[in-house]
Structures are given as structure tokens and as C-alpha cells.
């Protein structure tokens, strides 16, 4: 298919890899964070990191929407799912994320009506088909999925559907990046910016990274050549002594984003004062809730949720993985007690999670072969 095949060309990949080798300074170690979990998935599926010189390290960021959900919010979701008469809908990955004591899948096995959907529109369809029951959608994700939730709620409102509710856990990408840049744990040289989030918000919101922190960022697509080119562009900026926002994914990302999407987000959502992120703690103005105009659809107002903060299991090091402080295989339970079949931490659940990407594509090796 066009827009896919040409970005997986092996010969072009070799050329780009050669350019990267020619650009890096021998003896200098480069740490580049790919923010988005989709990028992490591509890197390990296609072995992009094997084409990089040994001194270029890719660090995996907090951009997997499933991975950053704290356990307390999963418990809240399970509490709503167990309410009498509720049909609880969510993306498939969320069903396997462990809460304090169980997963949504366990709750389903115990009798709760939990259903997997592919989009919030599917959940709205279930609400139309079941007018005598409350249908709750577990909304997660960054600015990429938030427009889908927003448009669905606008349709529900326009149709006067009174049995559809949203348990909103949408988050925004800029605050956690600022938190990471402020973190003393991590010394990064540059960023590969999230491609599909930028389709909505544009490249402009990332200007603070070069302006305030002096680091380059390159917005990237999701095919293997996109990522190789983005790595090259970051290294090129470092080599030239530049730091700016560059857009490798121009075929999809307009510099100012999608104004219509930003408009619907502004209508349906408003920022929470603070929101908890797994591994990063509470971050101000980083989460979305429904605006007053949509309060009738807010599951948190319809039902009382426990709202209890639950500490991660001691053995789980998802927090350090999400901050890029350790690699997945450095976690004590990686691939042993924690596997995609029986995950302890969120990073092992979603295919976009760094741990699942390492596990599924056989990246257990401590050492990387030099090419």
C-alpha cells in the first residue's frame, strides 16, 4: 500500500544507516528518547536499533497510553464495571492491566459485563442498542485518541443519548516531557517526537524543548525508514550545534496541527488541576476531564469511584522504564514473573509498551552487536 511500502525499503535503510554512522562523533555517547510507544514498537519489530552505531542509545519514553495509567485508576474502572446494570467498554489492552487486586478481565470472569471495543463509537453503538442499561467507555490515550472520544460524546449529546458515560483518563503529551526534562535522573541529548499526537496538536507545542532546554526534537513517522531518518536528523542537529523542532513526518503532520480537532477537544474537555502518571507521579495540568457542558456524560459524577492511590508492586520497575532510566531487561521480573501473558506491570501489557516490545521481539540480550 502507498505510504507504507516505500518506507520499508531495505536498500534505503542501509544508506540512511551509513549516513548515521558518518554523522556520529567517535567517543561521544548519544541518548535519544523516542517519546511514543508506537515508535518503540517499530524500533524492535524492524530491528531499527541494530542499524545504529553502538554509541547511539535509544531511550524509551512515556508515550504508551496504556502504560502510564496508574493502578488506582484501574481499580476505579473496575469499581464502575461492577456497578449493577453497567456495560463497561474499553480497548482490549486495558482489560489485562493489573489493578491493586485484579484486572478488568478478572472482573469480567467474575460476572461484570466488560466488553472490548475498537473505538468509542463502538461503545456508543452498544449504548443505542441497550437503552435500559448504562454504557461506560474507559477513555485513555493522548491527543490522538481524545478527538475520537470528543466526537463520540458530541454525537451522543446531539442524539440525546442519556445512557452513555465516559470514564475519562485522557492525558496530554507536553507536561510529562517537561517533567522528564526537569528530572535529574535522565540526561538526554534529543527527542524523537510523537507523530500522531502531532497530527492533532502540531509541532509548535514542542518548541519549548529547544527554547527552554536547548535540545533538538524531530517529529517522526512510524515506518522503519521514518525512524532511521528521524534519528539521523537529531544527530545532524547535534553535529551542527543546532537545536530546533524539525518535522520528518510532513506527509501527515501540519506544523499547526488539526484546528478542527483542537476545537472539539476544547469544547468537550478541560484540564484537571493534576493527574497521576505511572512512574512519574502527579503532574500538573496533564490530564483531561469532561467540561461542564458534558458533565451529564461523566462516569465519575454518575458513580462514586474509590479514588485510592495504589503503589506499584515492589518488584515492578515500570516507573524507571517509563522514565527511560533503565532498560526493560534490567527490571528484576522482566521475562520471568512478568510476561505479556501474565503481566505485573503496564509496560508488559500493550504491544506499544517497552517491555512487551523487548519481550515479543526477543530483545533479551544485554549486549548489542556492533555493526
Amino acid at each position: 500500500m502507498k505510504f507504507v511500502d516505500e518506507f520499508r525499503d531495505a536498500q534505503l535503510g542501509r544508506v540512511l544507516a551509513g549516513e548515521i554512522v558518518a554523522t556520529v562523533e567517535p567517543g561521544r555517547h548519544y541518548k535519544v528518547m523516542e517519546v511514543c510507544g508506537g515508535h518503540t514498537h517499530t524500533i524492535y519489530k524492524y530491528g531499527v536499533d541494530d542499524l545504529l552505531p553502538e554509541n547511539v542509545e535509544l531511550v524509551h519514553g512515556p508515550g504508551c497510553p496504556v502504560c502510564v495509567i496508574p493502578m488506582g485508576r484501574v481499580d476505579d474502572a473496575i469499581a464502575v464495571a461492577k456497578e449493577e446494570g453497567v456495560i463497561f467498554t474499553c480497548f482490549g489492552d486495558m482489560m489485562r492491566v493489573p489493578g491493586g487486586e485484579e484486572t478488568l478481565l478478572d472482573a469480567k470472569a467474575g460476572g461484570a459485563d466488560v466488553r472490548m471495543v475498537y473505538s468509542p463509537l463502538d461503545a456508543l453503538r452498544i449504548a443505542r442498542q441497550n437503552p435500559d442499561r448504562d454504557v461506560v467507555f474507559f477513555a485513555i490515550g493522548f491527543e490522538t485518541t481524545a478527538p475520537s472520544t470528543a466526537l463520540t460524546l458530541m454525537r451522543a449529546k446531539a442524539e440525546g443519548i442519556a445512557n452513555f458515560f465516559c470514564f475519562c483518563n485522557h492525558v496530554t503529551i507536553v507536561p510529562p516531557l517537561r517533567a522528564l526534562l526537569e528530572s535529574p535522573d535522565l540526561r538526554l541529548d534529543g527527542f524523537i517526537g510523537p507523530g500522531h499526537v502531532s497530527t492533532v496538536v502540531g509541532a509548535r507545542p514542542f518548541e519549548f524543548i529547544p527554547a527552554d532546554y536547548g535540545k533538538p526534537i524531530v517529529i517522526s513517522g512510524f515506518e522503519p525508514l521514518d525512524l532511521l531518518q528521524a534519528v539521523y536528523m537529531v544527530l545532524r542537529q547535534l553535529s551542527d550545534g543546532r537545536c530546533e523542532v524539525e518535522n520528518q513526518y510532513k506527509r501527515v503532520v501540519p506544523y499547526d496541527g488539526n484546528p478542527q480537532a483542537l476545537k472539539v477537544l476544547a469544547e468537550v474537555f478541560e484540564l484537571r488541576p493534576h493527574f497521576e502518571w505511572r512512574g512519574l507521579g502527579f503532574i500538573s495540568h496533564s490530564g483531561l476531564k469532561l467540561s461542564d457542558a458534558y458533565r451529564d456524560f461523566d462516569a465519575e459524577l454518575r458513580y462514586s469511584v474509590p479514588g485510592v492511590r495504589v503503589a506499584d508492586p515492589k518488584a515492578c520497575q515500570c516507573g524507571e522504564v517509563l522514565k527511560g532510566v533503565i532498560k526493560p531487561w534490567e527490571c528484576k521480573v522482566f521475562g520471568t514473573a512478568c510476561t505479556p501473558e501474565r503481566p505485573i506491570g503496564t509496560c508488559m501489557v500493550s504491544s506499544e509498551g517497552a517491555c512487551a516490545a523487548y519481550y515479543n521481539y526477543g530483545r533479551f540480550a544485554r549486549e548489542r552487536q556492533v555493526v
Partner: protein
Amino acid sequence: MSTATDCGSDHCITCSDEGVPMRVLEAQLDGIAVCADSEGARSEVLMDLVGAVEPGAAVLVHAGVALTLLEPEVPA
């Protein structure tokens, strides 16, 4: 439950937080279009954010919503 290794395509079928290039097959009323991905799998997609589109147009779809048009003339 599927894991990434089960997927024939380049994204996990259980995860909707993934942008998928799709081709518009049929524009319907109410801002919805029937689209197909590179494997031929069809689904209904909301077109509210990209406006009216003709059959044959390529769009980037995220969680059931077309986020943007993919323009053939624009190089990477």
C-alpha cells in the same frame, strides 16, 4: 488475547491507539465512511475532522476517526 506477535499487520489488533493508513471506499451520510486498511479489513470511520472526502482518498485513522488526509503529492 492477542499479543503483538499474533498480528499479521503492523499494529496490534487489540490496541486502538495506533494510526492506520486507510483507503476510503464509500462515503456515507452522517459523516461516516467505509474504509479499508492495507490488509483489506473494512471499518466505519468518522470523517468529521477531515471534511467531505471522495472514494479513493487515503486517510490516517486513529480509534475510528480520520485525523488527516494523506496527500499523494506530498513527499516524505
